[in-house]
């Protein structure tokens, strides 16, 4: 949120266990439009390939969010 406020386009990536929390924090900071990508939880100690596969599936969303203003 700090970077976004300075004008640097950002995408926030959270796992689904933290998605509600992330949305609430953006609401509290009056930044509800902050782009947020939700990936699977957990990621800690998971096989790297599985995490990469999940994250890669969101690639287009990330690009769209960054270019969307």
């Amino acid at each position, binding site marked *: 949120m700090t970077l976004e406020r300075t004008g640097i386009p950002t995408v926030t990536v959270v796992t689904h266990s*933290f998605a509600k*929390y992330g949305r*609430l*924090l953006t609401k*509290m*900071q009056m930044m509800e439009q902050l782009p947020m990508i939700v990936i699977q939880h957990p990621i800690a100690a998971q096989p790297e390939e599985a995490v990469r596969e999940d994250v890669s599936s969101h690639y287009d969303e990330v690009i769209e969010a960054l270019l969307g203003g």
Partner: protein
Amino acid sequence: MSEGGPAARQVDLDASAHAIYEHYYEQGWTDGLPIVPPTEDLVDAMLRYTDRDRTEVVADIVPRGGQATVEKIAINAVMAGCRPEYLPVVITAIEAMVEPPYNLYGRQTTTHPGGHLLIINGPVRHELEVNCHQNVFGQGWRANATIGRAVRLICINIGGGIPAVTDMATHGHPGKYSYCIGEDEEGSPWDPLHVERGFDPGASTVTAFCAEAPHNVNDMVSKTPEMYLESGASTMRHLGANGAYRSGIEGEQMMVLTAEAANWLQERDWSKERVRLFLFDRAQNSVGVLRDRGGWGTVKQPDFVDINDDEAMMPIVPRPENIMIVVAGGFGRHMSAVLSAAYNVSVTKPVTRKDGSPIASVEDFIR
């Protein structure tokens, strides 16, 4: 910070203490424990112990960004059970916690178990009867119990730090109810924390340090300072400690020694600085042990460690002065390692009047 925050909302409730507690709990305005109803007269009595206007905004408290007016701080302090004269210390604690190096946003929302430890120095310890001795982290002293609790209630009610909603601590720890100690300045052979940080010995200060629960180190047997402090260092460097992996960023870790231990060390020509340097040198792990576990690789690695060399040693803080040493506690040579997330540092603020001048006594406010 600024003038003119919103006035507190008043509610009319059934006069029974139980009904009031139930209402406050249902509204999410408590830490789960019963509260003292913040009636107008109790809040007004507390506001006598400040020269600030009740609507003055002391700080915005994240993550909600709620405005902590003097009045709202006083309301939460009443709820926590504070005596009126504790208010200047509670206000000072909040001023410390909102300084950027404290990283309150991160501390309020992290999965890490961080409680807002307040370390009180100076004459205000005696005036408010802040415990600095036996059972210093434990129960039994109103000032320690309620000043720390007031800060937690402020984080909840003004800051919006709601467990499992915005406060995502995986486990938390009991100090998140209240976490407040005084330093045993009279028992210590060394300069106390606030003097180390440039304050006059007669100044009263509050140091805020977001930290895990104290981890006891029991060493009654070691006959040399080296052996004794090695026991402490081994606790500070354990493989689950955030600091073990984060000396590449700014963070602090703390060791609490008793006056008995500090004097025993001083009698053997171990100054506080020598103790600090020893802990820095010994609270280290080899890269080979740290690699690919714990918090390895999650933050910037220290520039001064060759992380390709398994034999290279990595400290728990970037430099020796980032190890805080505080003297507190009762008889015996137990130590308490108080470790942090290493994403934050402590902040010390003096207890002052509105114009910034230090107080000699909390009674200065009502004279």
